């Protein structure tokens, strides 16, 4: 039991004490707390914005208009949510094993790079059918991310090197690596981007069917979102229905028990890091082929890091990841236009802080007792 004791000099009229919960809480309680925590994070950010002379209410209404206000902007929100779903899943599967993959950003970049190889080298003849090109890009994107996940996984399994630091360092390395190719070898007439890919390497978008269905005109939602949903389904099956998922969860919850049960922890570390990297790499591939249609600088506004918050907010549940991604997709869409530029990041920080703080309410009851002095 934790007691925040009142100081002797300033006697508060109440003592706040935390008591361990013995009974189960009702089913609505955890989601209610999560939503409450997110609202409080918005509130605090609003107050800070007000303090520095902004207009929180106008920003809030702008936020709504720019993200959910019409089908066209909602589609933008979903487009930003798409990579977040995959990156969020990447983080969720690693975190489930208490493997701190903070390197989804780098794996995203490597996935984008490897997928671009298919077109830029080219790895398959450019006149191949679209299915072949896109298929090759999916495979390459996942391989690229998996390679970038393998490095920290191997170092942890073999030398017990802390994966938090290595994955983070690999982010910076991946960005420099991509920049070299974009600025130097593949630069389009000196610009910091590769030439636009041929249409055969574009993921189909709803807007492509605008001629048949008028309502789709200008809707940029692309096939990548389907990859995300399929990946969530597969991940749910792995975690909840397969024996491999059971191993992952057991290692995460109780590594000693896993060891005595004869589970090969080192092998699972490498495997899960590679799966995690592959998912982040797929997100990079989907962004390159579905949105920008070329490799360029800053293809990610920090998707890899936002994915960490998404995974945590979703309590590592694959399907909840999809919902949370939409909220954060909205945050990214609005954050591009809202000044000051750090606002979205600050809000994300507050949200994550509030979420992990609110967890204490699931484990403890807060009790206010009147002082009888």
């Amino acid at each position: 039991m934790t007691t925040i004791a009142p100081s002797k000099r300033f006697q508060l009229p109440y003592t706040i004490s935390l008591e361990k919960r013995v009974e189960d809480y009702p089913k609505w309680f955890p989601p209610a707390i999560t939503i409450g925590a997110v609202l409080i994070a918005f509130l605090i950010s609003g107050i800070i914005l007000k303090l520095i002379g902004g207009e929180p209410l106008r920003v809030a209404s702008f936020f709504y208009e720019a993200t959910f206000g019409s089908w066209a902007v909602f589609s933008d929100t979903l487009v930003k949510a798409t990579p977040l779903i995959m990156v969020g899943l990447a983080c969720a599967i690693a975190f489930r094993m208490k493997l701190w993959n903070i390197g989804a950003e780098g794996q995203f970049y490597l996935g984008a790079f490897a997928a671009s190889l298919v077109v830029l080298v080219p790895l398959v003849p450019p006149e191949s059918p679209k299915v072949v090109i896109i298929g090759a890009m999916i495979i390459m994107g996942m391989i690229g991310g998996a390679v970038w996940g393998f490095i920290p996984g191997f170092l942890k399994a073999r030398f017990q090197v802390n994966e938090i630091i290595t994955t983070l360092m690999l982010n910076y390395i991946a960005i420099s690596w991509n920049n070299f190719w974009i600025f130097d070898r593949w630069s389009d007439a000196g610009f910091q981007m590769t030439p636009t890919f041929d249409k055969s390497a574009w993921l189909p978008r709803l807007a492509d069917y605008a001629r048949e269905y008028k309502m789709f005109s200008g809707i940029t939602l692309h096939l990548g979102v389907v990859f995300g949903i399929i990946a969530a389904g597969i991940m749910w099956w792995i975690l909840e229905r397969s024996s491999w998922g059971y191993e992952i969860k057991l290692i995460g919850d109780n590594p000693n028990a896993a060891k005595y049960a004869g589970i090969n922890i080192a092998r699972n570390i490498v495997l899960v890091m590679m799966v995690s990297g592959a998912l982040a790499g797929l997100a990079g591939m989907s962004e390159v082929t579905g949105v920008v249609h070329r490799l360029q600088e800053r293809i990610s506004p920090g998707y890899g890091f936002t994915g960490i918050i998404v995974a945590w907010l979703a309590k590592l549940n694959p399907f909840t990841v999809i919902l949370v991604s939409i909220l954060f997709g909205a945050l990214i869409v609005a954050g591009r236009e809202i000044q000051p530029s750090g606002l979205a990041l600050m809000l994300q920080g507050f949200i994550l802080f509030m979420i992990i703080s609110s967890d204490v309410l699931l484990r403890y009851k807060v009790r206010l007792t009147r002082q009888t002095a």
Partner: protein
Amino acid sequence: MNPIIILHAGLATGTILLFAAIGEVFAERAGILNLGVEGMMLMGAMAGFSTSLSTGSPMLGLLVAILAGGILSLAHGLVTIHFQADQVVSGLSLTFLGTGLALVLGQGLTGQNPPLVPSFDIPGLALIPFIGPVFFANHSLLVYVGYLFAPLTWYYIYKTRPGMHLRAVGEKPEAADTMGLNVYALRYFYVFVGGCLAGLAGATISLSVSPGWFSELTTSGQGWIAVGLVIFAQWDPLRAAFGGYLFGALRRTILDLQGPATLFGLTNPLYINPNFSFFLQMAPFILTIAALVWGSRAAIRERLGAPAALGVPYIRGERGL
């Protein structure tokens, strides 16, 4: 490629890592992993820069930077010590929060020129050949503070009673509690110390080593390198200081490689194509990974390791693991 210049610059940039890494040594020695160093450094860099700009006093700027880092770290303390939240996730959110807050509060600071922390020669010592110009000439006050700070913290941690308490709290909090130490209070205190030093490290950048406010590029990952350095240093402040200086010097060497047209009689590829410098930019991060691998192998060999209770919340009245 002048060795004096490289070592001189290495000591200056190494001082940033020295403060940040020693701060993290304190927090981790008390059993609290704080991955928010990057965020706290940015807050410190912004707060110090902004204060020096508005008051004209860089010393006041340092003080505010120290407090900014410290106050931010208390959020991590509350969440991990009292609420027993996961320290990794809390530290990450501290990085997001610190970075975001610093960007929001620091808008409009880019391009400003506040008064900086003074640089000076140490009289007498600066005249020693080679050693003088490297160690004791034209350095910022903070570099000289760093020289004294590392051995003092080493002495504090290993040779004094409060230092022993610090280690006890991080190694076996139940035993420390039985001894009558207030585990919660000590953990809060050292998390705060760690935050203060991270804030100071941030201000070391913005008010001394590479003056200016460049949003998140001000720190550009050095907070994370500092966290890595702590593992490399095996939680020893002297090794952390040495690692910081070594890192600083290597970084400078790498930068200087771009200058000359020929290296050892061969044409310098970096001189012909500046895009190769992207590979040089990777170098500090590759070095950190290499240092970690080396450090982890040494730890296994020498049976050293992290403080035993690092990352484990202490719950009074419950049995530890």
